[in-house]
């Protein structure tokens, strides 16, 4: 665990709304190892994106990181000034967002937007920066990069734009690449291209990557480790194979069961988790999943669930798992 590039410790990001405090992320801890891919998976509203933005310190009012520690290589990110953080963003930590169609500034050329990042963080400028941009565009598989440098985003397709965004994110060869649902808005065949590219780039640069997704297919294609979130909290964390083969938390189990697989037959059972995920505004104590949980018992509504190192190799946050583990 010593070569962790990023340590997140008890991160709590809350939003002060009129209706109350939305605890979007409420006590999240994990470590990211160099060169590894961590997938954060969860349903909409589970706090995945807020986690990513907290790491980047992109949370805007009324949101605020109320507690926790984010340590990037020995630097406490939360203690940095905004200016120091700006130097870090796009440079040591790159980020890719969900919707490539709206993620590029429509009034600047592709070239300008890549060059801007390069100029901001390196000593390159002018022709050199442009040359670097061309190189990056070639790297992410944009054909005829020289000619397309002066094109505007609207002249690019969705897949191509996502490639441009990847080029921007890796322009300074970051230590960490955060990809927030990078393929959700894309078609299947394009998604495959982008996933291939991401995986390729991550390996080439040797960066660590946090990949946020709701698609367990993507997780299984990309992840080394998996962190499952539910309602702002972590429910299970572990090696990808462990999580898929041996999910311990009832939510993880339900989620895996809900997936419709290509080899399912028409007669196979369609399983789902009953009920709806809660909105974590001023949540009561106890496990957030208990109302939908098949294994819930009294304790779940009274105490926050404990962190349990399971015998199967994952970490689960669950009273029921704790009980199972404690049982002989």
């Amino acid at each position, binding site marked *: 665990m010593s070569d962790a590039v990023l340590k997140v410790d008890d991160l709590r990001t809350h939003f002060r709304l009129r209706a109350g405090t939305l605890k979007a992320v409420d006590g999240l801890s994990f470590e990211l190892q160099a060169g590894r891919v961590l997938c954060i998976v969860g349903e909409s509203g589970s706090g995945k994106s807020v986690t990513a*933005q907290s790491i980047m310190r*992109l949370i805007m009012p009324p949101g605020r990181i109320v507690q926790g520690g984010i340590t990037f290589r020995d630097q406490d990110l939360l203690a940095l000034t905004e200016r120091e953080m700006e130097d870090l963003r796009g*440079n040591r930590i790159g980020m890719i967002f969900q919707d490539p169609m*709206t993620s590029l500034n429509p*009034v600047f050329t592709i070239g300008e937007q890549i060059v*801007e*990042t390069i100029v*901001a963080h390196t000593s390159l400028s002018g022709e050199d920066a442009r040359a670097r941009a061309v190189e990056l565009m070639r790297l992410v598989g944009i054909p005829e990069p020289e000619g397309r440098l002066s094109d505007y985003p609207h002249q690019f397709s969705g897949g191509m734009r996502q490639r441009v965004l990847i080029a921007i994110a890796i322009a300074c060869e970051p230590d960490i690449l955060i990809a927030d649902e990078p393929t959700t808005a894309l078609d299947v065949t394009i998604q495959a291209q982008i996933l291939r590219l991401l995986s390729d780039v991550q390996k080439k640069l040797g960066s660590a990557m946090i990949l946020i997704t709701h698609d367990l297919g993507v997780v299984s294609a990309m992840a080394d480790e998996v962190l499952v979130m539910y309602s702002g909290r972590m429910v299970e964390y572990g090696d990808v194979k462990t999580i898929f083969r041996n999910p311990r938390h009832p939510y993880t189990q339900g989620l895996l069961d809900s997936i419709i697989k290509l080899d399912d037959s028409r007669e196979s059972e369609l399983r789902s988790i009953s009920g709806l995920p809660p909105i974590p505004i001023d949540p009561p104590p106890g496990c957030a999943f208990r109302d939908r949980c098949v294994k819930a018992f009294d304790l779940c509504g009274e105490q926050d669930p404990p962190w349990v190192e399971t015998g199967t190799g994952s970490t689960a946050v669950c009273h029921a798992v704790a009980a199972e583990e404690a049982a002989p």
Partner: protein
Amino acid sequence: MTRFIVMRLLTIVPIMFGVSFFVFILAHLAPGDVTTTLTGPYATEETREQIRESLGLNEPLPVQYGKWLSHILQGEFGKSIANRRMVAELIFPKFANSAILALTSAAMAYVIGLFAGIFAASRPYGYFDRFTIAGTLMFGSIPPYWFGLLLVLLFSLTWRWLPATGMTKIVGGGGPIDVILHLILPTIAAGAAPAAIIARTVRATMLEILSQNYIKVARAKGIRRGVILRKHALRNALPPIATICGLQLGYLLGGVLFVEVIFAWPGIGYQLWQAIQARDIPTIQGASLIIAVAFVLVNLAVDVFNAYTDPKIRISEGVRSR
């Protein structure tokens, strides 16, 4: 781009046609007969009839309109009935005076509106923002004639810093500095409301733009906050800002009548108001037309500017010509 400009120019034709028709009809609908000023209270009805005849006011309206339009198209606005001046000679200098005031007011409104709006948007719900919102609401609701009077009361009469009326000092004045001194109070009075409106629009637009994904991306790229605000956000906020700025300039060019009255500023709005009171039909028509044309042209300029700044419109043409 060329196509866009040509198309946009074509849409002006029917509007200008409608404007001219509307102007014509309005001027002729006014009650009160111009011959009463022309012949005085002691004239007989026959004399009035003769005058009407000689001015062509007895012809059917469509005929009058046709003649008027054909004259206008040849650049002839006709002669003022009230004072025998060529209408063009009369209204263009007045329009120029209004334009001077409009441009300074607009400049003030743009500077204040832009800075206040951007600054307020950069820290939403902060103290400056609240202050800006309150200010815009205040200045947006102040009756302009009242505001003008207050300014005169304070700056001209109480403190005696600035002149109260007119465009130049009557005696020994007229130099550029004199004109500038005379401009200050009317500019503030005329520019306050547009500044408020622009500030409000800029703030709303900037907040909208700042919530866009590409701003988040720019921040994630590590671009400095100020650069994001100035470059990324402002550049995208330009079209709506340009539109509101154009609209405000258009209104100011139309003559801020109240300001012109309060400060005895010899502008086009005041001229039109005088012409309406004198039933001076050629002047009413000329002045309304020039105001409407100015407004339409400013809007055209804004549209062309917006088209130019929008790569989608600019580039579509570029691709085609390649």
